[in-house]
């Protein structure tokens, strides 16, 4: 199993999720985060001094998937989150040694 983590633009979440669902993905977990990268943050003005906010809001998605699904899941996220503008985000894949469904205690593939 693999853990796929994707950092995307917030307004793309719905599209990404719907497409993953269509692919048969049953679950995922998201959190709010702030990204620092090529995309510039915005500028705020206060009392005449300008402040630049270095970080831009991002949504971080993580989902554990079977080895065989990794490629299509990454592809699906990548396609649905793309706007072709700087800041679209990253996806990375990490090995997972085990997974447990808390409710049932099932392990591994069954826990997905």
């Amino acid at each position, binding site marked *: 199993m693999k853990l796929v983590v994707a950092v995307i633009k917030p307004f793309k979440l719905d599209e990404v999720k719907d497409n993953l669902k269509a692919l048969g993905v049953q679950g995922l977990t998201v959190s709010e985060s702030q990204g620092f990268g090529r995309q510039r943050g915005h500028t705020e003005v206060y009392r005449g001094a300008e*402040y630049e906010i270095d970080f831009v809001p991002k949504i971080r998605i993580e989902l554990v998937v079977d080895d065989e699904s990794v490629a299509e899941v990454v592809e699906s996220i990548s396609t649905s989150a793309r706007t072709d503008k700087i800041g679209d985000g990253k996806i990375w894949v990490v090995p997972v040694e085990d997974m447990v469904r808390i409710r049932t205690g099932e392990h591994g593939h069954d826990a997905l």
Partner: protein
Amino acid sequence: MVPDPSWLHAGDNAWQLTAATLVGLMSIPGLAILYGGIVQKKWAINSMMMAFSGFAVVLVCWVLWAFDMGFGHPAHLGPGFLSSFVGQPGAVLGHLSEQGRANIPLLSGKGLMPKFQFPQSDLVYFQFVFAAITPLLFLGSILGRMNFKAWLPFVALWTTFVYTVNAFLLWGGGYWAQKGALDFSGGYVIHLAAGTTGFVAAAVIGPRLRKDRDTFAPNNLLMVATGAGLLWLGWNGFNGGDPYFANANASAAVLNTNLATAVALLTWIICDLMSSRRKSSLLGSVNGMIVGLVAITPAAGFVNGTGAIFIGLIASVIVWFSVNKLSHRGIFKKVDDTLGVVHTHGIAGLIGGILVGFFADPRMVEYLGVGKTPNASYAGLLYGHPGQVLIQLGAGATIIVFDGVMTFIILKLIGLVIPLRMTDEELQEGDLALHAEEVYAEAPAIGARLTSSSLESRTRSGA
């Protein structure tokens, strides 16, 4: 040395100033924060900016030309109706127009009401806060997509060409006032007008982003409750100030206003609990409250307590159905009226306006007659004057048609010069793109810092 001329009664002036301040608080901060809290985070700043700036625009127009158009000498623009539907524009700036005795040429001391006992500046200010809240009400219909730069001229033109007419027709002694139409504090002039205008404007400007409509969720219901509370209690000035005297009718209007509101709020909760949803909500309670406040507005001092209860009850049930059943259907679904102003202000105002034609109790006295002058008091259908309902219907229809058409024309004209909608990027990003500000600026501001330029200059100075 004396504080005031003999015509001035301090008690009346004090109440009028207080009432006007309460009404002002309904807009600023009341409606501004109600809107700022009820919209998504991305629209909070924009919504509040539109409220603050709209309020300011109305005052400038009001003093420079519009007050006189609503309450001054009639502009005789033709025969019949044309001779009594709007006043002549004029400024209220000089010492006399500020400190002289208040006067509405077609009304004061004309057997319809006693002479005013406070100065003109007080009347101008009191009527201003009403003129100003109206655009802020229909702002609720077009939140989340109207271009800020088109908003300011829209408010100016609407105030000039629409509100003044509404006011003159019903309150300035114009056509419908002469026919005996009743609108105690603006069920028509303000709420029906706001509902109509907002709906037409929403249609002309077009809907919000699909996404914004689908994921509408208030960012802060504590602020909605704060704004709603200021509305409720501020309404004591709204309806209590309209007799223009701190008299018995003012007190009765305040009591009736609160009574209808309490009934409407509880009715809405009960409807919610009896519906398939089986749950009452804060937004529902606020809806019910507003419906009560709006519906009693045209009637507050004309009806007795029983009338107030029935108006609150009837309006709440009808608007509950219109919000919960009609807003999915037909034109109400097509047009994206962001906060449903057409229901809670338009329909509620109309219902109140019609019901005053039924419930007006002639024993409720606004002003006492002296000698042969009769009391100023009015009868509805239930008290032997069925014609009143027709008059009320006529006045309501006039407002709907006139305001709808004029709003359409004004917006189309502005649209020729300034885009009515935000750009796509602005629609996506909201406040940040529009005003370079966020409502809760700090949360995502982990790591904000001065831009290099200002940082540099600061560093150099060692400050």
